[in-house]
C-alpha cells in the first residue's frame, strides 16, 4: 500500500513533465513538501520524446538528467506514477485530494534487467513513440525512465504471458496481485501542470492524415529522427521505408483556424525550422525541405535561428497555407495543392513526406475534477478565482520548453506564498 504523508503545508503538483518537475523541484528546494503526481509510468512527459531542443539543438536528455539528479537529491518530493487525481475539494490552504494509483505489477525490487521483457512475446503499440512501433507488454517506458522500473501492461494480466514474466524475474520484483489503490491526502496549494497533446490531425480532412501513409505529424517526425526512436534515427517514409529526402512542412496544421484551434500554438514554426536541420543532417546537399507557412513566428532570439535556416540553400519557404493534399498511389508520394501569396502562383508540389506542424491543445480538462477556470482554448487561466490553484506550463498556455519552465517557476512562487500563509496561521 502506497502511503502519502501530507499536510496542509504540502504542495500538490499534478503532471510530471518538464513543467511539473520544475515546479516541484523549485518548491522543494525552498523547503516545501511536495507530492508530484504523474499519470504515466515515468516522469519526463513530452519533452523526453524530443530528439533535440530549439534553438541550441541540444538533447533534452541533458536537461532531464539534471532534473532527475535534483529530484534524487531532494528528500521533500514524493513521486507517484501511474497516478491520476480524481477529485479535489476544499479551499486554499486546506484541500482534500483523491488520487487513484494504477497497478504497475512491478515493485521496488526491479533492477530494470529486462528479463521479463525478453520472456513475454505479446506486443503492444508504444505510446512513447506515438504508436509508430510496437513494444513488449513488459517494458521500460524509455531508456531514461524515472523510476527506472519495468511495467507489466494490464492487457496480459491473468494470461500465461504475465506468468512467464514473473517466472523470468530473479529479483522477486513482479507482483501480479497488485490492485488499483485510492489515496486521499491533504494539500495546501495545487499546481496543475497537466501539459498538452497534439491536435487530432485526422480532423484536418483535406490533409488526409488518416488516408495517406506519408502524411505524418511533427511529433511523429521527432521520434523518427531520434536515434533511440522506432527507426533508429532514420527518417524514412511509413509507406515503403524509403529515406525521405524531399520533405514538406505544413505550418498552422490545426492552429490559428476557427474550424480547429483558434490559438497560435507558438512552438510549431520553430519546431519545423529545427526539423529542416534533421533532414539536412541526414541527406546533406541532397536534402530538400519546403516550409509552407502563413507567417513565420520566430520572435526575439529565435530570429537568429530563422535566419540561419533561411541561409540554408536546401530549405525553401512558400508563403501559403496548403489547401489540400493528394497521394500518388503508385509511388506513395504526396502532392500538395494550393496558391502562394507571393505572386498568386498555383502549385501542385510533389514531396516524399509531408509533416504537419501540429497544434497544441490542453491534454485534460481540469474543470472535471477541480474548480478552475479556462480560456476559450481550454487552457487554465493564470489567476484562478479560488486562489490556491495555479496553472503551469502548457496546461496554462501554448508554450515552448523555455517558457514552460519560466511559467512553472512562477507558479511555484505563487503556491509557496499560499503555503507560507497556512504555516503562519498554524504557527
Amino acid at each position, binding site marked *: 500500500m502506497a502511503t502519502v504523508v501530507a499536510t496542509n503545508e504540502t504542495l500538490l503538483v499534478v503532471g510530471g513533465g518538464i513543467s511539473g518537475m520544475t515546479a516541484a523541484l523549485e518548491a522543494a528546494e525552498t523547503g516545501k513538501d511536495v507530492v508530484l503526481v504523474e499519470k504515466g509510468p515515468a516522469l519526463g512527459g513530452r519533452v523526453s520524446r524530443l530528439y533535440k531542443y530549439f534553438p541550441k539543438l541540444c538533447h533534452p536528455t541533458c536537461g532531464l538528467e539534471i532534473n532527475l539528479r535534483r529530484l534524487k537529491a531532494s528528500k521533500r518530493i514524493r513521486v507517484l506514477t501511474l497516478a491520476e487525481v480524481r477529485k479535489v475539494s476544499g479551499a486554499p490552504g486546506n484541500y482534500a485530494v483523491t488520487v487513484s494509483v494504477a497497478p504497475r505489477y512491478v515493485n521496488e525490487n526491479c533492477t530494470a534487467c529486462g528479463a521479463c521483457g525478453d520472456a513475454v512475446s505479446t506486443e503492444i503499440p508504444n505510446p512513447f513513440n506515438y504508436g509508430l512501433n510496437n513494444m513488449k507488454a513488459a517494458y521500460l517506458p524509455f531508456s531514461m525512465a524515472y523510476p527506472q522500473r519495468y511495467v507489466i501492461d494490464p492487457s496480459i494480466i491473468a494470461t500465461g504471458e504475465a506468468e512467464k514474466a514473473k517466472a523470468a524475474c530473479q529479483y522477486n520484483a513482479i507482483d501480479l496481485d497488485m490492485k488499483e489503490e485510492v489515496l486521499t491526502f491533504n494539500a495546501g496549494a495545487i499546481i496543475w501542470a497537466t501539459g498538452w497533446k497534439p491536435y487530432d490531425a485526422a480532423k484536418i480532412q483535406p490533409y488526409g492524415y488518416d488516408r495517406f501513409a506519408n502524411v505524418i505529424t511533427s511529433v511523429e517526425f521527432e521520434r523518427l529522427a531520434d536515434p533511440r526512436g522506432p527507426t533508429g534515427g532514420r527518417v524514412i517514409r511509413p509507406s515503403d521505408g524509403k529515406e525521405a529526402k524531399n520533405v514538406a512542412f505544413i505550418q498552422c496544421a490545426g492552429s490559428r*483556424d*476557427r*474550424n480547429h484551434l483558434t490559438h497560435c500554438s507558438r512552438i510549431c514554426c520553430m519546431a519545423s525550422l529545427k526539423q529542416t536541420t534533421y533532414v539536412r543532417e541526414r541527406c546533406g546537399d541532397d536534402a530538400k525541405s519546403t516550409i509552407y507557412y502563413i*507567417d513565420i513566428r520566430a520572435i526575439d532570439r529565435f530570429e537568429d535561428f530563422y535566419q540561419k535556416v533561411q541561409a540554408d540553400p536546401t530549405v525553401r519557404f512558400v508563403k*501559403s497555407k*496548403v489547401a489540400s493534399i493528394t497521394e500518388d498511389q503508385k509511388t506513395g508520394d504526396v502532392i500538395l495543392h494550393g*496558391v502562394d*501569396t507571393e505572386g498568386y502562383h498555383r502549385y501542385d508540389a510533389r514531396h516524399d513526406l509531408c509533416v504537419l506542424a501540429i497544434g497544441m491543445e490542453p491534454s485534460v480538462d481540469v474543470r472535471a475534477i477541480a474548480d478552475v477556470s479556462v480560456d476559450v482554448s481550454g487552457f487554465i487561466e493564470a489567476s484562478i478565482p479560488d486562489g490556491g490553484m495555479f496553472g503551469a506550463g502548457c496546461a496554462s498556455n501554448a508554450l515552448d520548453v523555455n517558457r514552460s519552465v519560466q511559467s512553472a517557476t512562477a507558479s511555484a512562487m505563487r503556491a509557496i506564498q499560499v503555503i507560507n500563509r497556512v504555516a503562519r496561521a498554524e504557527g
Partner: protein
Amino acid sequence: MTELNHKMVEQYRNDFLKEVEANVEEGDWVKMCMQCGVCSGSCPFGPDWEHPPQEIFMMIRAGKRDEVLRSESMWMCTSCYNCIVRCPRELPITHIMHGLANYAHRLGIAPKMNPTRRFAKIFWDNIAKNGRVNELDLSVKLYFMDGFKKGVKRAIEMSTVGLGMLKTGRLNPFGLVAHRGCKDKKGIQKMLKKARELEDRRRGLATRGA
C-alpha cells in the same frame, strides 16, 4: 504642394477598402483576410479565375479600384461555399464575391458581356416582373442572348432536357403568351422597389435601374 505632390498623393490615396466596407455586402470582412490562400486553393474553379479571392482581397487593400470592379473574377463564383467552410477566419467569401459583383454592376462598370452577369440580369428581370420564374421565357432569352443562330443551336442541344421538363409539367409550353405569375404581381413589384430604395439609401447610392 506642387502639382507632382498632388499627383503622388492622389496615386496613393487609398479609400477603396473603406468604400468596399461601406457599400459591398459583407465588405467589412475584407480587412480580416490574413492572406493564407486556402480559399484560392480550395476553389474548384480556382485555375479559371484571373484573380482568386485572396488576391482580390489584397487588391482591395492596395486600392486597385478599377482592376477589381472591372474584373471578371468574382463573376466566376458558383456559390459552392468551399472557401467559406475552409477559411481559417470564417470570412464569408462567397457573399463578398457576390457583393463585389453586385456593386460593380450597380456602378455600371461590371464587364458588359460577362455571361454570368447577363444571365443574372435576365433571371432578375424575369422573376421581378411576375413574382415567379417563367421557365420558357427564361430559357428562350438565355439561349438567344448571343443571337438567333447560336440560340437555335443551344435550343437543339438542350431539347431532351426541355422535353423532359415538359413531360413532368415543369415547363409551361404556352409560357411566352400565358404565364400566370403570382397572385399579387403589383404588390411584389412595390415591395422590391421599396427594398431597393432602402438599400440605396443605406449605401448612399442614387436609385437607378437594376
